[in-house]
């Protein structure tokens, strides 16, 4: 009986939430990597050519560096990131009990700075935050995404899905119009992908730098001439969470490279 229940519970976990019409079934999910040309793929695949790896190396230094009035480094509490941070990014955004809501990996890093290092928060998109976040997420490279499985997150995943389906901006387009209904097509000649968030923070050739998932989402919103949500806003976190749950099972690629 107990064994049977465990199997039933496991089955529930792997099937995940029911799909709405138009949503991409698990076996059809493809990372942005699958849409890229051979040169960009080669750049991502070769750590010596991947510009994102410079940020990962910076992050490794910051991991060890003592900072804040607590004069502690991340390593003083978390020790070797290769074991302590393995798989962590694959389940972020994660529910924070104290706050009662999901937090992104970047927010978690800044919470550790505030609560455990007594240091000031690192600004959004700052080099140090991207470097730390790239270093932590790199420890999950190859690990399948499971974010959103925690049942406490359900209302937030649902909120993110609603935002994904909502038409907005002067062009009146929803994320789903491009990333569910029209991937594999071309927008002004550029391939549209499924918008899977597998590689963040990632190096975009167009940006000439590493950028967060929130930066990407804000530029899609600006593209449809909508007022982009602020960094760290509940809406962006919910969208990020929905995107991660929508990518369930795809392996993490951080630091990915995209055109």
């Amino acid at each position: 009986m107990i064994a049977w229940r465990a199997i039933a519970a496991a089955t529930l976990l792997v099937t995940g939430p029911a799909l709405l019409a138009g949503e991409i079934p698990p076996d059809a999910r493809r990372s942005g990597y699958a849409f890229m040309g051979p040169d960009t793929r080669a750049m991502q695949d070769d750590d010596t050519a991947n510009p994102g790896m410079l940020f990962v190396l910076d992050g490794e230094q910051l991991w060890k560096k003592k900072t804040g009035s607590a004069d502690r480094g991340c390593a003083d509490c978390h020790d070797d990131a290769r074991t302590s941070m393995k798989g962590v990014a694959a389940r972020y955004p994660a529910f924070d009990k104290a706050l009662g809501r999901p937090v992104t990996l970047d927010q978690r890093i800044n919470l550790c700075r505030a609560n455990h290092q007594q240091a000031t928060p690192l600004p959004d998109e700052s080099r140090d935050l991207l470097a730390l976040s790239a270093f932590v997420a790199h420890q999950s490279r190859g690990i399948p995404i499971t974010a959103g499985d925690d049942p406490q997150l359900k209302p937030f995943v649902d909120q993110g899905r609603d935002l994904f389906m909502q038409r907005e901006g002067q062009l009146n387009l929803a994320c789903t119009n491009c990333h569910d209904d029209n991937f594999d097509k071309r927008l002004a000649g550029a391939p549209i992908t499924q918008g899977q968030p597998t590689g963040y923070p990632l190096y975009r050739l167009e940006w000439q730098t590493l950028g967060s998932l929130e930066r990407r989402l804000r530029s899609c919103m600006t593209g449809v001439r909508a007022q982009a949500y602020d960094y760290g806003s509940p809406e962006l976190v919910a969208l990020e969470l929905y995107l991660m749950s929508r990518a369930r099972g795809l392996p993490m690629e951080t630091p990915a490279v995209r055109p």
Partner: protein
Amino acid sequence: CSASANELVPYTIVGDGIPASLTGSPSDATRGRALVLARTTTCILCHSGPFPETRFQGDLAPDLAGAGNRWSASQLRLRLVDASRFNPDTIMPSYYRNDGLVRVGRNFAGKPILSAAEIEDIVAFLATLRD
């Protein structure tokens, strides 16, 4: 005067079109072609057409070649003003509309995507697309 810049000129839908020009003044197909190709007008994000000079064309929507055979000027005008009249689920934006939209960016709020004169120039150009 600037206060009325965002106000839409009234138009009358007859059948599946808007037979009367939005401006009442002559339109310019050459300017219309340039507008269709301009990135900010957004048409070729989705459409392709007989535009050999650019490879930045989309394929989310039908090729515009021959649009002037398939549609009258009246139909083209309504299509641009409000494509959702033809297909309520269309992804093609309504180019002459300034309300009922969600979270429009600060710089665009209250304004239609195109002006009445721009719509007329584009209609004039599309009407010339005959194969």
